[in-house]
């Protein structure tokens, strides 16, 4: 099939998909096309949009592609928004961060790290489907363990969990002292921490970037 035509089909499928659609699903529709060719078509489309100064681009989120408006238009779109706008308190963000990097994690572990009760925040994150119950831990009391959801990846614009920014190593924090803690979060410090489930190269979310088999399953 002609490449130009193939590109248009990919565009139509992504446009009409109600949720992020995986490259493999798109490839299945196109004769003689594999997921990596789909990725190439998406890259071409994004280049085309940028060149034509369109108001949208294709993002890779939660293992699939989705057409999204550019951030600069948010002030206008907010005014016509019919659903409740997304608001995340610092408490929600901190709790999400703990869950994202420590999953599957119990409520007690979250509270130990944050030093405060997590019940209300957890409930609201569950309600908003940013967090899911990932089962029980097989220890006395069988506490529930929490993990981030597919929706979390979607909302935060992450192709997979590994795309989260790196958690700064404790040693680096201690060395840097507390003085300039609001400054650059030093992505250099990564290696020392065996506990992090995330080994991440770059935090820059670049749509259509080469990603191998997206697996946002969260289990490790």
């Amino acid at each position, binding site marked *: 099939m002609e490449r130009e035509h193939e590109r248009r089909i990919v565009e139509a499928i992504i446009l009409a998909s109600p949720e992020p659609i995986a490259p493999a699903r798109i490839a299945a529709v196109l004769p003689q096309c594999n997921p990596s060719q789909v990725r190439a078509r998406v890259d071409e489309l994004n280049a085309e949009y940028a060149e034509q100064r369109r108001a949208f681009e294709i993002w890779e989120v939660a293992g699939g592609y989705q057409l999204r408006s*550019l951030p600069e238009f948010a002030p206008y779109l907010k005014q016509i928004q*019919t659903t409740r706008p997304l608001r995340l308190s610092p408490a929600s963000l901190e709790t999400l961060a703990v869950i994202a990097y420590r999953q599957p994690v119990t409520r007690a572990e979250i509270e130990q*790290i*944050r030093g405060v009760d997590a019940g209300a925040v957890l409930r609201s994150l569950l309600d908003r489907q940013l967090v899911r119950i990932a089962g029980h831990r097989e220890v006395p009391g069988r506490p529930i363990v929490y993990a981030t959801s597919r929706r979390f990846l979607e909302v935060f614009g992450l192709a997979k969990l590994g795309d989260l920014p790196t958690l700064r190593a404790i040693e680096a924090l201690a060395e840097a002292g507390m003085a300039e803690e609001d400054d650059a979060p030093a992505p250099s410090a990564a290696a020392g921490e065996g506990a992090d489930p995330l080994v991440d190269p770059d935090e820059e979310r670049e749509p259509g970037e080469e990603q191998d088999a997206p697996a946002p399953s969260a289990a490790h």
Partner: protein
Amino acid sequence: MTTAGTPMPDGTGDFGSNSAYAVKLPIFEGPLDLLLHLIRIDEVDVTDIPIARIAEQYIAYLDLMRDLQLDIAGEYLVMAATLAWIKSRMLLPPDPSALHEEGADPRAELMARLLEYQRFKEVAGEIGERHLLGRDVFSASAHGVEATPEAEREIEVGVFQLVEAMRRMLGRAGYSGAAHEVETETITVRERMVAVMEALAGHGVCEFEALVREDDHWASRAVIVATFLAILELTRLEAIRLYQGVDEAGAPVGAIHVRRRGEAGDRGWAERVSELM
């Protein structure tokens, strides 16, 4: 974060009640956050915290909160006790027999917790600055077929479960105790039915809770009750369907979604409403 400890009477309140002051204090996410703040403004090293001084400032802050009649969560008091304990341990001469024990420095555990908390606080700030869906970026929203996420299914509930759900919702909205609404509102179920259908005009789906919230707070009790009845009525009229996710065991979990049946322009429901009410 604003600067510490500057209470600002707003002057407009009634002076007889607890709410006479609008207070501007930094909002701390908990005792660890407060400690990090104190350590930072003191420019001391987190690995060598001057416990006596920091503990004093910590207590002073709690006193300030108390003076302002803010509730002090239990966690803050536990931390105050911990600081006092560490302080007392530091005053004792080191016990030679305990030298090899882990925790020779009584501050070690607190330091570890502070550092651990700080990394999550940092990264939380970072992810909060991403371009979030529904806040900074918006997705193209196609809805051809009535798209039910596979994980969700239509709710099957009886009347007792509905009443229970209603009671729970009012409880969460803080209307469980004595109500003290003074404004008279006239809300009809019919108005709420129209409002629900209007909310569904765009996407065809919205969260049940979003219908009983106004911006950041809950709607009045009357609105919640009327909306609840409106949703039941609309379901009966087959104008909407209610969906909710299920967990592995098949029990409903997560937000309840209200979905429109039929096409966007379909006004059939409006006629049916008119016939009835």
